[in-house]
């Protein structure tokens, strides 16, 4: 029997009446069709028809933003499936975790994927922020997109934090107790904010209900809206940042300066990217297949790595939440351990002032550092001051996190991990 190859089936499908009605362009064979394939598809049109070679360089962007986005997609997919079993009740939530582990088909792998994707997303969002900083990509005209990025980083942490309570185990209960008590140190509104977050005075059923609503609808909704704006602006700012080149200068045309004896298309009012007058067309390649291929490849890598992680490493689940006894030491997830180390010196300074200043400076950064040079290159010499300051802050954050993770034992006392390795297993 002659089995048709997938390519042949695809070709046949595109020739049928139904196939043509769904995929209007079909498999593109000319450059015109390659553009049309991108523009006419709902899912593809968020991306440009042509893309600058520089944007495709893996050594430049390292795909970090895209990896974060893929992890978000995976989190939504696995999270939606988990919702079919999960019950946000203090009596039942923990049992559902056990059911997922031992009873539900593929429940263990899905929960593991969700947990590891959440950890990785925080990690890759931080890496993405570092990349954008070290390449000076937050400078004009991308200032506000950096601000949106910082907000997305905070929302990512919020999603992780709210998700943490849902299993209702010891880790969940005490991480949220500590976290909401930090919020209570905020000036003026602190205790009221804590009351609002918990829906009461202690972490209980009301808090679980609230965190569940935030985790499954409010924060994902905000995330999706902001990610859309984030990507839209990347597109409108002419793709990824790159070193300035001849003919690349952006000219904004004021509406009243347009001659009135001529009709204009929308493209001529857009700035920067179109039309490509005076540019070298050889610097740009068609998104189909160059961009699409890389995107699909990267997604496969992310999915495979995550699946392997989820198969070989189980997401931790501690004992059923005990409102009386915190575990000793009671450690937050790794991305909050630097913060926990800080609050172990002072809750107000370490938990409110220092993080507040850091977030404020990050948000204002593109409006403080305004010189438009050294954009689009890693570690540009002109940016040595900014890069040095950022690196010092980064090292401090990493060192604090490492201390919190490995050098803190019972009662948060100093403990060298190589002397008593048993303490290391406590942190997650």
């Amino acid at each position, binding site marked *: 029997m002659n089995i048709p190859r997938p390519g042949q089936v695809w070709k046949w499908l595109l020739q049928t009446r139904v196939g043509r009605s769904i995929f209007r362009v079909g498999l593109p064979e000319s450059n015109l069709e390659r553009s049309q394939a991108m523009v006419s598809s709902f899912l593809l049109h968020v991306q440009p028809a042509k893309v600058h070679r520089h944007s495709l360089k893996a050594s430049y962007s390292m795909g970090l933003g895209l990896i974060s986005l893929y992890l978000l997609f995976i989190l939504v997919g696995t999270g939606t499936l988990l919702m079919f079993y999960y019950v946000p009740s203090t009596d039942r939530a923990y049992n559902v975790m056990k059911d997922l582990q031992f009873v539900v088909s593929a429940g263990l792998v899905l929960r593991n994927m969700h947990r590891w994707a959440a950890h990785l997303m925080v990690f890759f969002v931080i890496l993405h922020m570092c990349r954008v900083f070290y390449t000076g990509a937050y400078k004009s005209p991308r200032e506000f997109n950096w601000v949106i990025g910082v907000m997305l980083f905070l929302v990512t942490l919020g999603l992780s934090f709210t998700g943490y309570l849902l299993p209702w185990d010891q880790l969940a209960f*005490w991480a949220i107790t500590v976290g909401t008590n930090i919020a209570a140190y905020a000036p003026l509104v602190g205790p009221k904010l804590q009351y609002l977050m918990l*829906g009461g005075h202690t972490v209980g059923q009301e808090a679980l209900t609230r965190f569940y609503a935030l985790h499954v609808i409010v924060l994902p909704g905000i995330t999706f809206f902001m990610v859309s704006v984030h990507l839209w602006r990347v597109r409108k700012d002419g793709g990824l940042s790159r070193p300035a080149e001849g003919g690349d200068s952006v000219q904004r045309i004021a509406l009243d300066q347009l001659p009135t004896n001529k009709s204009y298309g929308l493209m001529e009012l857009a700035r920067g990217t179109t039309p490509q007058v005076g540019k070298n067309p050889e610097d740009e390649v068609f998104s189909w297949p160059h961009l699409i291929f890389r995107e699909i490849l990267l997604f496969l890598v992310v999915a495979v790595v995550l699946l392997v992680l989820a198969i070989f490493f189980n997401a931790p689940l501690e004992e059923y939440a005990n409102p009386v006894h915190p575990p000793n030491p009671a450690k937050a997830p790794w991305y909050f351990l630097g913060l926990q180390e800080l609050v*172990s010196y002072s809750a107000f300074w370490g938990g409110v002032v220092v993080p507040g200043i850091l977030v404020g400076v990050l948000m204002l950064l593109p409006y403080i550092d305004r010189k438009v040079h050294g954009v689009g290159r890693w570690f540009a010499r002109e940016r040595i001051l900014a890069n040095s300051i950022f690196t010092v802050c980064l090292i401090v954050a990493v060192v604090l996190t490492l201390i919190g993770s490995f050098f803190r034992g019972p009662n948060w006392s100093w403990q060298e991990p190589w002397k008593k390795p048993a303490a290391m297993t406590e942190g997650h």
Partner: protein
Amino acid sequence: MNDTPTDNSVSRRGFFQLTLGWLAAGFAASATAAGALRFLIPNVLFEPSEEFKAGKPDDYADGSVTFLEDERVFLVRKGNTFRCLSAVCTHLGCTVNRAEQGYHCPCHGSVFDDQGVVKGGPAPRGLEWFAVTLSKDNRIVVDKSQRVSAEKYLVL
């Protein structure tokens, strides 16, 4: 209104219309936000009472410090005096553990002495003391909503 596009001046009527319009929109938006916020603040809490009975005085031995698990407090008896110390760390709300001398918090390492006074770590204040009374049926009653000084005892 007969403003031409080049005329930037606002007529009196236009000014009032604009002001009224923006005020109305602003009022509607803030009222909606305030209503939603108020909705989220609960009016009734299904939390255990702050006041509770802690058994008979004879249940506690002389010189003992007893941890009452459900209430997260320590009941301290010395001779015929009774006091009640909160076990909730004033730093970030973890439960402190009784040590040989004083109390230790497992979360961030705060140390308190027998009087609840901070001896080390990040805690901003000492542990709270709660009012202790005796009910008519000879039971110890603790009211966690009433904070008292460490020198205040229930004397039998």
